[in-house]
């Protein structure tokens, strides 16, 4: 696959160009037990997830710990091989079919930024080798001098000092600066998509703001699409064009950011939003706190997976005999919940099928 450069947009998402299209993605981790490591069950971390990301767009992916959001990001980057089922088309090509050189070429165009700026940088490498390593590996620079210049450009772009910082080691930097090094490394190969896995969760609020602003500026300059995985809903609202809410391996609701935060339809989305502490002492207290915790993905609840914690659950939500409908309740706004039927103009566009648990997982 040759990297054909197309003109990149400078501002806002280009909805006519889909960068990544994920359909029915499943990633089950086998649980092995006993002498012969017999497979006794599966952790269904991701269980039928579909979404598109457009050029220059940020898709936020939110949910509680263990909902599978990180697994989605890692699986589409081929860091969790093999995939259980589903496809992820990057510019029309299924990433799960790529091998060898083609896979390497893909990695150039899809990058990742990790949550922990402490463990994701090799402590024995200088900033120059951390950021420049990929440039050498992918043959994008001819010699050391050229590499140093490229790295200096990248550091400058990410708000680091290109002269003083380039020879230093990771321990000499603060958390925010380390995250900038991680970002410089991710953009070194001019990728089209970056999976940002909780990139600011480990940082102080004042530093968080600096890193978010940097990510937004880079997106405007380079037209990069982000899959922004986070549990901080306020941060996600700020940076994302569209947001998908995940619960127990499935997408509960997806919509453009404004709609999702203003008119959430799924009870889980509503509960998540009302649980955020507001920095306003006069704000009303959370009227319907969510009780209990996320059930285990090894043996998820029958029917709608959210029903044990749902205030609106009816009998038809609780068994596998009736599939959970997916409604399109507005342009690009889809919700996997029976409540979708009460929304004016809602259209049933599909359903979550149950009972496929016994199909063989490779």
């Amino acid at each position: 696959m040759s990297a054909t450069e197309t003109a990149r947009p400078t501002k806002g998402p280009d909805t006519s160009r889909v960068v990544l299209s994920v359909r029915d993605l499943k990633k089950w981790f086998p649980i092995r037990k006993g002498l012969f490591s017999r497979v006794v069950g599966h952790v269904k971390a991701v269980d039928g997830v579909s979404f598109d990301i457009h050029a220059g767009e940020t898709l936020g992916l939110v949910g509680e710990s263990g909902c599978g959001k990180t697994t989605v990001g890692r699986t589409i980057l081929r860091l969790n091989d093999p995939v259980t089922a589903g496809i992820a088309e990057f510019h029309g090509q299924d990433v799960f079919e790529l091998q060898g050189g083609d896979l390497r070429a893909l990695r150039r165009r899809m990058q990742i930024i990790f949550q922990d700026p402490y463990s994701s940088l090799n402590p024995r490498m200088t900033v120059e080798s951390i950021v420049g390593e990929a440039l050498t590996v992918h043959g994008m620079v001819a010699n050391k001098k050229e590499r140093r210049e490229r790295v200096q450009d990248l550091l400058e772009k990410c708000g680091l000092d290109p002269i003083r910082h380039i020879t230093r080691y990771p321990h000499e930097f603060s958390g925010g600066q380390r995250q900038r090094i991680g970002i410089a490394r991710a953009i070194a190969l001019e990728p089209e998509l970056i999976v940002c896995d909780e990139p600011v969760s480990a940082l102080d609020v004042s530093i968080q703001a600096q890193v978010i602003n940097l990510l937004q500026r880079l997106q405007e300059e380079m037209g990069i699409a982000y899959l922004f995985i986070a549990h901080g809903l306020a941060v996600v609202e700020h940076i994302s064009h569209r947001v998908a809410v995940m619960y127990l391996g499935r997408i509960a609701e997806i919509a453009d950011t404004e709609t999702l935060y203003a008119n959430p339809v799924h009870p889980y989305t509503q509960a998540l939003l009302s649980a955020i502490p507001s920095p306003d002492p006069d704000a009303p207290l959370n009227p319907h706190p969510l009780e209990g915790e996320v059930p285990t993905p090894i043996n998820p609840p029958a029917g709608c997976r959210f029903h044990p914690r749902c205030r609106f659950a009816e009998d038809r939500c609780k068994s596998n005999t009736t599939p959970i409908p997916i409604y399109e309740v507005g342009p690009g706004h889809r919700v996997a919940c029976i409540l979708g039927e009460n929304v004016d103009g809602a259209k049933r566009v599909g359903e979550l099928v149950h009972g496929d648990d016994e199909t063989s997982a490779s």
Partner: protein
Amino acid sequence: MTERGQARLLEVSGLQTEFVTDDGLVRAVDGVSFSVDRGEILGIVGESGCGKSVTNLSVMGLLPKPQGRIVGGSVFFDGRDLVGLPESELRSVRGNRIAMIFQDPMTSLNPYLRVEEQLVEVAELHMGLSRPEAVKRAVELLDRCGIPDAARRIRGYPHEFSGGMRQRVMIAMALLCDPDLLIADEPTTALDVTIQAQILELIKELRDERGMGVILITHDLGVVAGMCDRVLVMYAGRVVEEAAVEPLFATPGHPYTAALLRSVPTLDDEAHGKLQSIAGLPPRLDGGSFRQCTFLPRCALAHDACNEGDPELIEETPGRKRRCILPVEQVR
């Protein structure tokens, strides 16, 4: 008992704490004063390294030894100064009267012991209960802290509990001896928002029930707004502002507080706008005195007069202190 009701529960004045490090002396806490009443929740906010955790480790007498020591000030708890108290007496205060919960519930529980052992040990040691009494009390508290089927779950090991449940176990352990003061250091930072809401609600209910004082250390201003009665904003080892929660959020009196408030993305602000960040990093705290305002290099409102010495913490209106020479109307 009447005496207990009158005195301030905790009165910290002029606390100074130093650490000996490879890079020299670090004065992590530099003249911090505050008080906590019974039934009050005091929030302490600030960036990493501002001294908020060290302040509370000093109060508890839990500074790492020999690197850390209190070099000045006093910590009056219920009328008695804890600074300089022998370890044996301090231990009877800690646990019995002051309890602490930490950010990471996994590292604060012993993974090899059943939850029952860990809870019962505390009750036997500090309250002199017999084993059956201690078990009964532990089960009661786990139940009160929202652990379903407590009598059975108490037999489990920490790894069998989820993050939120572990934090409930920690809170139950902290409450075993019915403490007068609970210090919660980032109690919900490692938890999801939905679980965070449950835990915060629990702490509030327990405060109402038992009338304990609570010190809540956090960097989440949303948590502060929802939970606290009064707030202490710390910067570079000092208090830069102290106020009741409503006035602090309505009209911050220090540029640092104002900047912190602006750097939080809120649900109703304009999406994709530029977030206000605070440029630069806090100063090094080498124990020397500051010849200028400590926040000056990062302050958007700085002017010439700010170079002339570090401002004092001044109580301008009752209950409201700030460390800034600008008139309060100009702070934004």
